[in-house]
């Protein structure tokens, strides 16, 4: 079939060069496919629904200057003012999710349990939080205004009601009857009745193992650890942000105010993952580029070296197509060898990354897709030199060297 035999024998004479190209392709495949799974996993993690209307939310944090500052009063006045602002859909006092900062506790379904708790982030909220965060209540009800307790920061008062996320409900009550059941802090006997279940909330640490386990308590404390969470009407976010900064300072200049969009906070939280995605994408494209350069370089070299033979073949009646086909086939065989090498190397490399760094397993399909793309790149890289080879004139045969 075709000119496989002459190709093979020609390759055999250049076995080291051919092997080097194959080796290069194989290593590249191993790196590229492993980088791809990591990129894919990070992208999926960042793209997970957060359960909140992150695109429309602006958060404001303030720090009072006088030592004896009435926080609860400030919360009340600020909220009244904010809710009147144009473009504001809803506002609440709580802590912003997705920021990497918050608190968590272990929870149990029975009192006096000290071991084996389920970790969950917790937020103290008022009755506006579901609306302001743009969350969805899937069972039960929201807190009523009279359930919200305004507390001093050192109060030991325990909440008696709670709203939790569906994910936490499923974890704590696998039979699926969480609504109305009590949950307990580790070791304590104070029941907190689940009055509502929200669809989703990733909590403060989307990358942690407890992300999505979130508990809300109907209480506000008079300390600094609160944010105002303001949901703007669609498209109004940036206008609301500016207005918020102005109006908060205007209402009380005696404080330092930091206003930010929730999207900015989320981007900052994921900065490490985003860096990883971009760096790995850069690695993938650079490597592919370098391999392509290597193939172009070597094909050009081989063709120049064999100019005379090509001339002879042309003189003996080989068509241009046959000449190009010869080089493309040669390239394809090298690439195929490289890819077989690469599929194996990729798996070995992946085992190492998985055991050492807990990276995701590499499915064969990903390796094959990457292999296919690399094959296409290598054929494309060989194409130009191969087409140029076809232009070598039969007269070359008559020249010496």
């Amino acid at each position: 079939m075709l000119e496989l035999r002459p190709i093979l024998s020609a390759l055999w004479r250049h076995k080291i060069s051919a092997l080097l190209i194959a080796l290069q392709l194989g290593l590249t495949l191993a790196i590229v496919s492993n980088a791809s799974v990591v990129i894919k996993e990070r992208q999926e993690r960042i793209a997970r629904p957060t359960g909140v209307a992150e695109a429309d939310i602006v958060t404001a944090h303030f720090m009072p200057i006088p030592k004896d500052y009435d926080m609860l009063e400030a919360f009340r006045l600020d909220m009244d003012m904010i809710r009147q602002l144009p473009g504001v859909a809803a506002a609440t006092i709580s802590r912003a999710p997705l920021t990497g900062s918050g608190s968590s506790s272990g929870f149990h379904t029975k009192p006096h349990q000290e071991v084996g708790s389920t970790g969950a982030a917790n937020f103290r909220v008022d009755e506006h939080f579901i609306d302001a965060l743009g969350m969805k209540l899937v069972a039960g009800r929201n807190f009523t205004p009279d359930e919200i307790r305004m507390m001093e920061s050192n109060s030991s008062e325990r909440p008696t009601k709670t709203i939790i996320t569906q994910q936490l409900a499923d974890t704590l009550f696998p039979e699926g009857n969480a609504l109305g059941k009590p949950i307990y802090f580790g070791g304590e006997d104070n029941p907190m009745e689940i009055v509502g279940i929200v669809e989703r909330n990733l909590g403060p640490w989307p990358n942690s193992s407890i992300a999505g386990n979130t508990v809300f308590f109907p209480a506000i404390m008079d300390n600094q650890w609160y944010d105002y969470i303001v949901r703007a009407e669609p498209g109004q976010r940036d206008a609301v942000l500016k207005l918020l900064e102005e109006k908060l300072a205007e209402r009380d200049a005696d404080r330092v105010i930091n206003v930010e969009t929730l999207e900015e906070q989320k981007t900052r939280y994921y900065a490490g993952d985003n860096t990883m995605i971009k760096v790995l994408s850069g690695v993938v494209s650079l490597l592919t580029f370098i391999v392509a350069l290597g193939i172009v370089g070597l094909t050009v070299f081989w063709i120049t070296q064999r100019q005379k033979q090509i001339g002879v073949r042309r003189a003996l009646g080989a068509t241009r197509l046959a000449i190009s086909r010869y080089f493309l086939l040669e390239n394809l065989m090298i690439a195929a060898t490289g890819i077989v090498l690469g599929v194996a190397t990729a798996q070995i490399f992946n085992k190492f990354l998985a055991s050492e760094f807990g990276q995701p397993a590499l499915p064969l399909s990903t390796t094959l897709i990457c292999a296919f793309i690399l094959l296409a790149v290598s054929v494309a890289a060989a194409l130009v030199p191969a087409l140029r080879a076809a232009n070598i004139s039969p007269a070359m045969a008559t020249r010496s060297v």
Partner: protein
Amino acid sequence: MIGYYVSLALRSLRRTPILSALMVAAIAVGVGAAMTTLTLNYMMSRNALADKNEVLYALQLDNWDPHEAADNPSEMPWQLTYKDAISLLRSDIPTYQVAMHRWGGPVTLEDSTVRPYTAQARVTSRDFFALFDIPFIYGGTWAKEADSNAVFQIVINEATNEKLFNGENSVGRTINFNGTPFTVVGVIGNWSPSPKVHDLNNGSFQKSAELFIPFGLHRTFEIQPWGNTNGWKPEKIESYEDGLGAEYVWVQYWVQLDSAEQRQRYEDYLTGFIREQKDQGRFPRPLKFGLSKPSEWLVLNEVVDGDDRMLSWLSLAFLLVCLVNAVALLLAKFLRKAPETGVRRALGASRSAVFSQHLVESGCIGLAGGLIGILLTLAGLALIRQLSMGYMDSVASMDWLMMLSAIGLAILSSLLAGLYPAWRISRTNPSIYLKTQ
């Protein structure tokens, strides 16, 4: 001879510009990628307290949950409870000792145009500056009693002094911190170790504090730390005082022990302290404490995270691909000159002469690749700084050592890449080429 080989190499590079450029590019990109990640790892694993590595110790006490160890490689909480810190501060064994944590608050200055801003502060005992060898520009640390009583004295860093007092000697002046007037007692030079060995709890590469206030102020401000507070024991907390007495850990503790004998005495003291606490029903776990040198502390806290180490492996693999590429290209390039080499061999050049001449040529390619690689590394680091949104500013930069390493790596790898091709060409059989000529 080398000089002649170098000129030969340059001539040869000029003759095959495309192939040479490809090789230089391959090595440059490989070196750039490898050096970018290696630089990050190198900068991250630096020990900012190396000067005092043999005498400083981070202290850990295992007063955790009887049912399970603390969830980290040391199996002990990273921080101490407030009450333990206060008790330990009374010991006179260590040369210096500090109990501290991160905090912050608004700063204002009366009759000043400086807008109120939120400053990062460190609440710490007075030995802090001596223990970490922080130089004072003006003044010094606060009074001894400030470690246990409310004393409104403050130490500020150079940048804050510049901002608030135009860099003048501000000792004796007043600034308002958290709505309270404080007297400036000292100004330190800008001190921002990276990684922040003294506090790895709040981001290892964040900026250090701008203000330093005494440890005796907790009750005055009812200070809640800006950092991790962890607990395991359910306790009734009715007041701030209850919080201070609780089993929550949130205080970082360092000691300076100058001799083995002093360390032994301190270990005995800690053992005695824990036994005493056990008698009172605390410290339910087996008796265990940790004294880690800064270098050990960095490793224990896993400052260089998995992503960074993974990237290093990946970029070394990347460099390997670039090297294989360079070997293939060098082989092609050298073999092309086989006829010429045949003639030289026939005229009496020894195999080793041919070999070293070609190795010099690979070295030249490596040098060029290395220089461009440094530029690529600088670009790569700039990119990392931008992508990481400020978290990496202090580590994504290159020092002279790393630049030299980049060139070294480039030359070493190109010499390695050149070994086989140079050997191949030195084995050229002159007779074949003489025949056709």
